[in-house]
């Protein structure tokens, strides 16, 4: 989905300085993207809901209340109650904490690994590059959800394993992106100049090369976060991710697999499903806006 031109920015292609910083321009481009702004607003609301969950919950998200099982939405229970009498609204806001943080941590892990492997591969070139890229090809050869399910079942289901598994299996995209950029930069004059005055390779990568890929990586990581949330939902839906009683949007849907619940108590599954879609959609919109803002050379 992310197409980036492989040519390095030609010298002299920089527009004339207009007194506006690059960031100010990027910000302007981002806020011109209406859907991205909408996504940002929705995501902010979702994040606030998650952060303030203990304040806006109306009942405990975990304690059972067998006196009020499977109730339809009402003034007392805005989104109804589940089969053990727990308030769905309270579970939704708490699940937001879990699902959003799993997404964030997972994408941080995959971005870190991706930048590291891609950076070393692109800067070192030659045999190191060859070896690392073959390794990347091998990791990419597995359908990611299939491998996520397999490894999650080996490690055992838990919220931390979910973060870890999604993180360690979804880095190849970013690695390839960073490697491509580093390869094209490494022969350029600013790198030669740095090398000739004795700057260490590590310093060159961190100080001179990395700042050039921050935009591209941010865009990829944003789309990566949307994907990570979907993968957490799938894993928890299968019962291999976040475990009850801790709610996540995915494991709330797991309870609705029986036709009785699907038919009789639709509020139990419609609400968490819509929350996943809403969160992922708004992050994807933000990603699209960031691409316009930070990566204007890309074609899409």
């Amino acid at each position, binding site marked *: 989905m992310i197409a980036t031109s492989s040519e390095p920015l030609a010298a002299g292609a920089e527009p004339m300085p207009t007194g506006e910083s690059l960031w100010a321009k990027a910000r302007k481009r981002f806020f011109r993207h209406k859907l991205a702004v909408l996504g940002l607003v929705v995501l902010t609301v979702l994040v606030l809901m998650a952060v303030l969950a203990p304040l806006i919950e109306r009942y405990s998200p975990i304690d059972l209340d067998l006196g009020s099982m499977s109730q339809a939405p009402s003034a007392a229970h805005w989104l109804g109650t589940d089969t053990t009498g727990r308030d769905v609204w309270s579970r939704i806001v708490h699940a937001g904490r879990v699902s959003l943080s799993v997404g964030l941590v997972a994408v941080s892990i995959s971005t870190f690994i991706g930048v590291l492997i891609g950076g070393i591969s692109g800067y070192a070139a030659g045999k190191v590059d060859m070896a690392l890229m073959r390794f990347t*090809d091998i990791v990419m050869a*597995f359908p990611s959800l*299939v*491998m*996520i399910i397999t490894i999650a079942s080996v490690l055992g289901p838990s919220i931390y394993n979910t973060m870890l598994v999604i993180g360690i299996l979804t880095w190849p995209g970013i690695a390839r992106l960073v490697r491509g950029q580093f390869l094209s930069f490494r022969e350029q004059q600013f790198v030669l100049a740095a090398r000739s005055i004795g700057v260490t390779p590590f310093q060159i990568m961190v100080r001179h090369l990395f700042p050039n890929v921050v935009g591209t990586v941010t865009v990829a990581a944003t789309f990566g976060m949307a994907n990570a949330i979907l993968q957490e939902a799938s894993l928890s839906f299968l019962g291999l991710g976040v475990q009850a009683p801790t709610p996540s949007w995915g494991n709330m849907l797991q309870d609705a697999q029986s*036709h009785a619940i699907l038919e009789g108590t639709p509020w139990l599954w419609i609400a968490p499903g819509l929350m996943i879609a809403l969160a992922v959609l708004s992050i994807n*919109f933000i990603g699209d806006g960031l691409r316009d803002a930070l990566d204007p050379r890309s074609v899409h």
Partner: protein
Amino acid sequence: MTTYILRRLLVSIPILLGITVIVFFVASKMPGDAVLAMISTETPQAEDLIKLRRGQLGLDLPLYVQYGRWLWQLLQGNLGYSFQTGESVIDILLARIPATLQLMGTALLIAIVLGVAMGVVSALKQYSRTDYTFTFLGFAGISIPDFFLGMVLVYLLAIQWPLFPTSGISTAGEPYSLVDNLRHLALPALALGLVRTATFMRYTRTSVLEVMNNDYVRTARAKGLSEWLVVVRHILRNALIPVVTVIGLTLPVLFGGSVIIEMIFQWPGIGLMFIGAVTARDSPVIMGYVLFSAVMVQASNLLTDMAYSFLDPRIRYD
């Protein structure tokens, strides 16, 4: 062309070997092994028996020796035996692959036909309301979990308006009929296919926009061809070549998606088998499925590359 295919095949070999190493390593970390599945710990002298069997099966050998033996078996087409039923994994896979291929194939077809059609319309009417609507729908498509879409479809089209059956591949107890099979196929294939439509739409739109402004398209219009002919013969022919690569990109996600969709709809394919094996910790079956899916992805990448070089003679690889 031949050298390209040969070289491409050679590159796949180390990748396939790497895949087997990873699959073997992951499986060796799985709790339980063939012996524990065969011998109950309650049997008298269970420990001695287990030790004996382990020795016979070579499970006490170093890991790399075990890998070598396993790979040798693999090359002879032996994927091991299920811990649960004792059946050969390759037989279980072969029996269930047709169902999965039918589901994935139909889903892919839905995604391609719908995605390409929407992409072409979007590009031809760039910046129109239709274009924006389709773009929005595309974003919604990639954001909705396929299993949630599956649940919505079941709720609407199988429960509220019972047009389609809720699960299975055919009505139990009735002789096979194609109509019955297709009715069962409709909802899972839609759930799996609709959410992948967006990818094809975006690629088609970009590609058509690029081709549209070429001189030969202007020439075709100038010589008075109807708009339909211009679009079909001159624009689409060239614009659809890059879209071929999207098929290769879609296959891995289709594998992941089919696992969950087969579970929701109790579709008796390899995805449902895989989830059953994961729950039962039946590692030979799990390995068999993971290996099969990875090899299929490799094969599809290879085919995509070949199709691409065949369709676009401008591309030379040597």
